[in-house]
């Protein structure tokens, strides 16, 4: 994640990557990532110290027998935990050390839920981690991804680009027809409220914006090769100029199609720009991945697949705030 370059399409199934050329945006992210990283370092110390000094109490806390031998194990792990902390605290941009930490820890699943749920400040996340005692590693991963993305040395234009790819079990012609009928797009692009085809190549798009607002624009298809490629672009005057391309190719296995999508938008400056950024997804990679996943569900099964925890279907925002897996009232 975060090492994406424009014009370098990923080929993995369901892969996606994004580029941001907006220095303001990345500065904002770096702040959060760094605070999180420092917090983690202190958390390491916080975890390491009691492990070393009070291994017995730690053992009881995590529910293992408090034998002499378990204390020794616990103490040894505390030493390891402490050893990682200075590396993180020393550095202005601690990516490397964080990755070392990740490698040392072994990816922790246990906190995934908690880490994802705790969305607020870095401190809140670390508090959540501390409270759980467990699963520091997932936080490490999140911090690593964030800091290295902001370290991406991209300059120049301010366009936000994202690329995604997925394989669907339908022939290219059918995929082409489905995508070419722009009115299908809102069925899987979560931020779209509606798209109406006008004359042959033009269409009117309505997207949901924060605070119940909508943003509208007109677009046209600028390239159209049946079974292979569709490219579209917003017309002059759009509040958030944007464009996209979908390329289709037969998959190696009979009858399926490789779908590769590139989208791009130019966030305007100022407050509108911030709103637009959110409109097009805070994380364009995540958004395009989600859209492609829903696209696959719709074209393969006819519908967006819903569960009790994610009644609206695949949507990263919803994954962060799951309902419990109980039937809807």
């Amino acid at each position, binding site marked *: 994640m975060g090492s994406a370059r424009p014009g370098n399409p990923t080929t993995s199934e369901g892969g996606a990557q994004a580029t941001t050329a907006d220095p303001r945006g990345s500065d904002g992210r770096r702040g959060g990532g760094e605070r999180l990283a420092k917090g983690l370092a202190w958390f390491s110390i916080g975890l390491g110290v009691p492990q070393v000094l009070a291994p017995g109490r730690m053992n009881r806390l*995590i529910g293992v027998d408090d034998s002499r031998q378990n204390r020794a194990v616990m103490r040894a792990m505390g030493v390891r935990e402490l050893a990682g902390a200075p590396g993180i605290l020393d550095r202005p941009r601690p990516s490397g050390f964080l990755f070392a930490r990740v490698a040392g820890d072994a990816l922790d699943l246990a906190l995934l839920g908690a880490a994802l749920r705790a969305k607020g400040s870095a401190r809140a996340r670390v508090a959540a981690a501390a409270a759980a005692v467990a699963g520091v590693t997932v936080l490490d991963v999140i911090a690593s991804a964030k800091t290295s993305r902001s370290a991406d040395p991209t300059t120049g234009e301010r366009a936000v680009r994202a690329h995604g790819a997925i394989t669907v079990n339908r022939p290219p012609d059918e995929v082409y027809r489905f995508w070419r009928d722009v009115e299908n797009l809102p069925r899987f692009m979560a931020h779209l409220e509606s798209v109406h085809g006008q004359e042959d190549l033009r269409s009117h798009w309505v997207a949901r914006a924060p605070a119940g607002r909508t943003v509208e624009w007109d677009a046209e298809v600028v390239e159209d090769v049946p079974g292979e490629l569709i490219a579209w672009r917003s017309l002059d005057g759009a509040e958030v100029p944007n464009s996209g391309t979908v390329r289709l190719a037969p998959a190696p296995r009979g009858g399926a199609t490789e779908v590769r999508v590139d989208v791009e938008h130019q966030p305007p400056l100022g407050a509108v720009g911030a709103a637009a950024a959110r409109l097009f997804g805070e994380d364009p990679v995540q958004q395009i991945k989600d859209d492609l996943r829903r696209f696959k569900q719709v074209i393969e099964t006819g519908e967006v697949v819903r569960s009790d925890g*994610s009644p609206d279907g695949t949507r990263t925002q919803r994954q962060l705030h799951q309902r419990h897996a109980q*039937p809807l009232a």
Partner: protein
Amino acid sequence: MRANCWMGVHRVEVRDVPDPKILNDGDAIVRVTSTAICGSDLHLFDGYIPTMEKGDVLGHEFMGEVVEVGKGVTRVEVGDRVVVPFPIACGSCLACHRELYSLCENSNPNAGMAEKAWGSSAAGIFGYSHMAGGYAGGQAEYVRVPFADVGPIVIEDDSLSDEQVLFLSDIFPTGYMGAELCDIQPADTVAVWGAGPVGQFAAASAALLGAGQVVVIDRFPYRLRTAAEHAGAQTLNYEEVDVREALRELTAGRGPDACIDAVGMEAHHGSGPIHAYDKVKQGLRMETERPHALRQAITSCRNGGTVSIMGVYGGMVDKFPLGSLMNRSLTIKTGQCHVQRYMRPLLQRIQSGEIDPTFVITHRMPLSEAAQGYDIFRHKQDDCMKVVLNA
């Protein structure tokens, strides 16, 4: 309705929750008549599977009567008696077309979570965490079943009791797949770690598939007795014998041709320091597994043999005998069971009397006593092997 909910580590509670509704056109609502508690549920109960939320409805082994169908459903009807497979599968994606149902590419709306942990996601599973889709489970009076045309198998033969067919939902196919993955040749020795329900069906299936000798390893004598009686297995109590030595003796130094792990992430280890090491690391979430059985299965297997992993693992493992695996040309086969693939042929084996899956059932209780069921099963009290709950 009443449903058994996960309320935190070591806490389940039967509570009032809303009745399920149709959310997708392919859904059915099933009134649950019988449901079971699985070793996999214990991993949730003990808090080792991440992304559980307080209030999640548990249960992935269940059957019952269809009471409502979505407008896209054509192959099951209201009134049908169905057994429902635990992995949720769409039937239309490439994985489903290859009969790899537990890898369905469409049934996990939370695939993004699983990708973070595993690189790619697998199928959604009933009542098995949000990473596996956030689906309410079947330890409940009613349950929503997505893709009703694909998964559930209709039981037309009323002479078969619930108990005879219930385990088609998971453990019989799982044990069977565990054995099938071993590509058993006549006269092969197959060793099975774990004499729980999955191990019992793995051992029985290995015998059905023609193994010359089946060896089952556990520490509970009552479970080992069942394996001896129903699979004709030799048994080893790992608290009494050195398992690797005993297996070498049984195979004159070669080691078993195939080894099946039917234990999973919460294995127990006879030797204190090793158990302590893994338990502390697992407790601190520095590794997510306690892989004692798997380590031993790998190091015991004969050169060039197959290790079939049916026990469930969630994340990362430490001290994995990779050198043994690589240098001795072992093959690893594994997966959540592709249950849909096995339901029909195994139903036939039940109908023909080749096997009666009820032999694993030791406890029957009403759904309202689910909490007690979990407790007894977890502590292997009262010679508990399998708890069936009647809703």
